[in-house]
């Protein structure tokens, strides 16, 4: 019988690491992910988790230790946020290139400057091209479930890539809500121990982190890309098996009221729930609105986005990130899905909730109205910032 607990998102990922019987956890604490190493050290001190908990001197060191530990064939996890992830950047790419299935919980937090500890997705979006799988949770149950599934997906020999599970700073990391904690035996049946293809072993010496010349670097990169492509199938399989075993449904892209929708909102993370409320409100007024939640941003769910969005008149992308000098980072990717399509929806981009600015139902309704006006005006493209007080910004002429 699964146990129901009221937990913060950070705690839920710590429980996931415990249930996954993670063997090495190197970590360096940073708000809003600090509760993860805190809870892990408690588990280890209490003897509830047999694991090497390494207190590192920086995030760069923490990820480096993750790489070393994972190369020995151990199951490895860590957690970080924002500047911490940015400091890891160099080694984040190495973890993927070395094909080490490390799983990292991320408390999605804005990047400096100005320094800000609250929620947006800029930190993980900045690591989008690193070769890590990216999952985003909407609620605390998903942080636990996705973390558990991430181990199984990442460790699959068709994938062998690291994965990040993003959860919104404070909105999930520090919010208590009901979470079903599965039984250890059930998790053990779902997630057998990690079997590495190659590992560091004094009795069978190998070289990890070897040099590669122009003559073969592209082949290695292509191999990582192919692994990312095969991850699509593996994710679907694991989501299906998870549902059979634990009864909770996961999809790379989750549709809500899209069947007859003329306008479809695309969201990532915790804003999805608030957007769902907004969709219900708009539906009650007869508006044909639907919602798509992206759970896996990498591998990018091209197939499902095409399937759900192709008949919409307008696709509204809501983004808690900004690629400065362009627009949101997800918007061009969704546009690319339809780049060569004969018939395509109008795609508009909205930047919202940066640095923890609260997203309320009224914001989403406003986004819908702006998008409808743009459609009427036949606007070809649009990147709109929601709720920005433009008149207060200092301009030097």
């Amino acid at each position, binding site marked *: 019988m699964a146990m129901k607990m009221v937990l913060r998102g950070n705690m839920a990922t710590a429980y996931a690491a415990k249930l996954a019987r993670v063997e090495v956890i190197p970590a360096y604490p940073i708000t809003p992910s600090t509760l993860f190493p805190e809870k892990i050290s408690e588990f280890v001190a209490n003897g509830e988790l047999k694991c090497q908990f390494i207190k590192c001197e920086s995030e760069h060191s923490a990820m480096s230790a993750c790489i070393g530990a994972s190369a020995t064939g151990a199951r490895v996890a860590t957690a970080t946020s924002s500047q911490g992830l940015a400091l890891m950047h160099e080694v984040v790419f190495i973890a993927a*290139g*070395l*094909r*080490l299935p490390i799983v990292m919980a991320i408390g999605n937090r804005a990047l400096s400057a100005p320094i800000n500890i609250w929620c947006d997705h800029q930190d993980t979006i900045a690591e989008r091209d690193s070769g890590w799988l990216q999952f985003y949770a909407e609620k605390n149950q998903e942080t636990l479930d996705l973390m558990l599934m991430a181990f199984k997906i990442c460790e699959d020999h068709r994938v*062998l890539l690291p994965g990040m599970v993003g959860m919104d700073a404070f909105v999930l990391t520090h919010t208590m809500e009901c979470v079903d904690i599965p039984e250890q035996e059930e998790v053990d049946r779902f997630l057998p121990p990690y079997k590495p*293809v*190659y590992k560091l072993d004094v009795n069978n*010496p*190998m*070289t*990890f*982190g*070897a040099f*590669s010349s122009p*003559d*073969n670097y592209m*082949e*290695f990169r292509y*191999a990582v890309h192919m692994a990312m492509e095969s991850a699509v199938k593996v994710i679907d399989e694991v989501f299906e098996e998870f549902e059979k075993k634990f009864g909770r449904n996961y999809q790379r892209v989750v549709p809500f009221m899209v069947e007859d929708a003329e306008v479809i909102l695309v969201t990532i993370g915790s804003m999805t729930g608030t957007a769902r409320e907004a969709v219900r409100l708009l539906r009650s007024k007869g508006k044909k609105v639907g919602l798509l939640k992206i759970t896996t941003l990498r591998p990018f769910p091209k197939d499902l986005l095409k399937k759900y969005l192709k008949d919409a008149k307008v696709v509204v992308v809501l983004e808690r990130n900004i690629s400065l000098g362009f627009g949101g980072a997800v918007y061009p990717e969704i546009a690319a899905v339809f780049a060569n399509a004969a018939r395509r929806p109008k795609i508009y981009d909205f930047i919202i909730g940066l640095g923890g600015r609260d997203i309320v139902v009224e914001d989403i309704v406003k986004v819908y109205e702006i998008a409808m006006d743009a459609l009427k005006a036949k606007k070809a493209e649009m990147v709109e910032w929601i709720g920005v007080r433009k008149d207060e910004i200092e301009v030097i002429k």
Partner: protein
Amino acid sequence: MKITIGATVTEAGSSVRNKTGGWRNMRPVTDLAKCKRCGICIIVCPDAVISMKTREEGPKTDYDYCKGCGICANECPFKAIEMQQEER
């Protein structure tokens, strides 16, 4: 070449197949009559290609891997090692 997972080199000692002696311009030649078998050349060789099995035999340079850097000749206290132009 096999493109392994993570560019892992799956066997130990495979670098012996890379015969770096081909990089050499100058060849160290040891005059065993001048050599006092002190072994300094063995210690200073950055590629560890000089070895000595017996005193009689004296130090031997493995030309498959010697890159001809000349450190041994420079360090030899008895000027027993001469750098000669490599001819191919």
